[in-house]
């Protein structure tokens, strides 16, 4: 089968390396950096997850690592995948009698980061971004609002609530860190 050649990428933003929750050492076990290839790997992991009868998180974890790698090297599409995988993870945990609200809340922060990065650079020619956020073709902000509301519901938050604003504000703060590189502070 024909397989497209990978394109080796560089981290997408000057400060993205500091998003250490994403930059877990295990992420470096994923050697692939090409966005389309990572996207295919995530889809394959999700297919495996769908076929599995076991309560096994292996495929989901591997998909998370690919999404994290994509977030570091390509920004927005990786963060969108990360959000989608988190929603799936919350559903799976809920089925097992657990409600991991903090995991969803953290994804709300990353979703806001993605929104800000996309606002700064909409990448109209990026077909992967376009495929991942089809609602954007309908309205400029439709995708982000809909996604945020769906994720917020999963963690018990509703639009307009203070905690949701807190997540947005934290995402804004991350955005500032990711796009800027402030100097070292000598003591």
């Amino acid at each position: 089968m024909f397989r497209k050649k990978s394109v080796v990428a560089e981290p997408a933003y000057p400060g993205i390396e500091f998003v250490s929750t994403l930059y877990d050492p295990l992420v470096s076990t994923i050697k692939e950096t090409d966005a389309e290839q990572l996207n295919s790997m995530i889809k394959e992991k999700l297919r495996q997850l769908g076929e599995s009868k076991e309560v096994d998180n292996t495929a989901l974890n591997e998909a998370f690592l690919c999404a994290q790698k994509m977030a570091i090297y390509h920004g927005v599409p990786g963060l969108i995948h990360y959000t989608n995988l988190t929603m799936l993870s919350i559903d799976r945990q809920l089925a097992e009698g657990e409600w991991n609200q903090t995991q969803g809340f953290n994804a709300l922060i990353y979703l806001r980061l993605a929104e800000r990065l996309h606002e700064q650079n909409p990448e109209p020619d990026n077909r992967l971004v376009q495929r991942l956020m089809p609602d954007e073709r309908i309205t400029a902000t439709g995708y982000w609002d809909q996604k945020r509301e769906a994720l917020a519901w999963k963690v018990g938050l509703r639009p307009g609530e203070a905690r949701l604003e807190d997540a947005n504000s934290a995402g804004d703060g991350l955005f500032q860190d990711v796009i800027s590189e402030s100097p070292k502070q000598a003591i």
Partner: protein
Amino acid sequence: MDSHRGLEGVREDIQDGVTKPIDPNPNAPNYPIGAMRLLVHGEQQRRLTADGSLLNCVVVERNPDIKSYDAFSAQKDPAASDYDAFAELIAKIKREHPEANMETSMRVQVIVKQAAHYTTVDLELSRDNNTCIVLDAGADPRGMTKLPMALSKLTNSDNQPLFSEITIIRPNQDDGRRPQNDLHNCPAFSMAHACEASKIASLHRDLVNSATPPNGLRYRFIDWRDAPPSLVKDAQSFTFLKDYVKTNVRAAELPELTDGAAYPQKVIMANKKKGEPEKKITVNDAVSQTLKRYQQQAEMTCKLLTSSAVMEIVARSPEASVGLAVSPVSTSRMYQTLAGGSFPAAKDMARADAEAPPPRRTLQRKAPAVPNDGVSQQVQTSPLSSSLKENVAPVEPERRALKR
């Protein structure tokens, strides 16, 4: 003369923070930093009285005045948000505190408030080596990302990184579980983590040994499931706790971890999608009880202070909280009276401390100065300004000198 005692004169939300459970309402105000300072103060006094051990813990609000995204975006000026109260505090401790530069190490626990969120950072500082551990029970990116980022940027006089490695305790790698599952208990976890971490003398050595090797960014990661039992005992997920008992041999150190029946339980209603029925979820509610014990201590401690003394603790600058000599406090008699008496919090805590390793005075060197009633009354002889109502407490002369 001010006849107010204890919490009477402080802001209502701070009183609530010391006397009521944390409000789970997503629109509830943030847990106030003043209440957190009173919790820390209560525990410091209890330890002093119980066995003379010291808790070197400070509470700092990181960039409360950070510019909003819109202002930042409009100005295109990243430097507008460069000031970092947390980094400045650590730099100041290292620069000005002699004990942070000795051969033997000094431990400090820093509870950091960032907007609504609280995280604990445990520091071990010495002449030759400085290490730090980030403990964020909910793995919030503000704790897991912004604080390590600030720590990684600190440099010493040789322009070398102040912290050669930064250890971050992360959610379990294979299932994403972490101690905090809900959206409102981060202050309780932070307080508990600061207090419990301070009791483990070998924490930094232990965690570095079991953490992953540092990545290119000098970060080491360790799963919560590999953390010491006293740091995970309040985890809200029963699955997390069962997994911990199964995989961590040290779980046996805490009987409540191996005896599931001992967990206090709470039922919450989860709702994952608009229009779908709610689902009942049972969680471990131990963290609420832990917080309650700290609150009871704080409340009892405050009752023996005038309200202006309480307000001074509430408004205390973090720099002033580190490294001052221990001053006599008026609460010691209370705890002596209560030892084995009717105050359940003191009793439980004393038992827990007795089971813990002996206090490490070499590490927890000094406790912050506390204005006793006498000092407070002297302050009160001057007319109380309305600013006191805003929790701007008068500053003692020696503290003013220190600030300079």
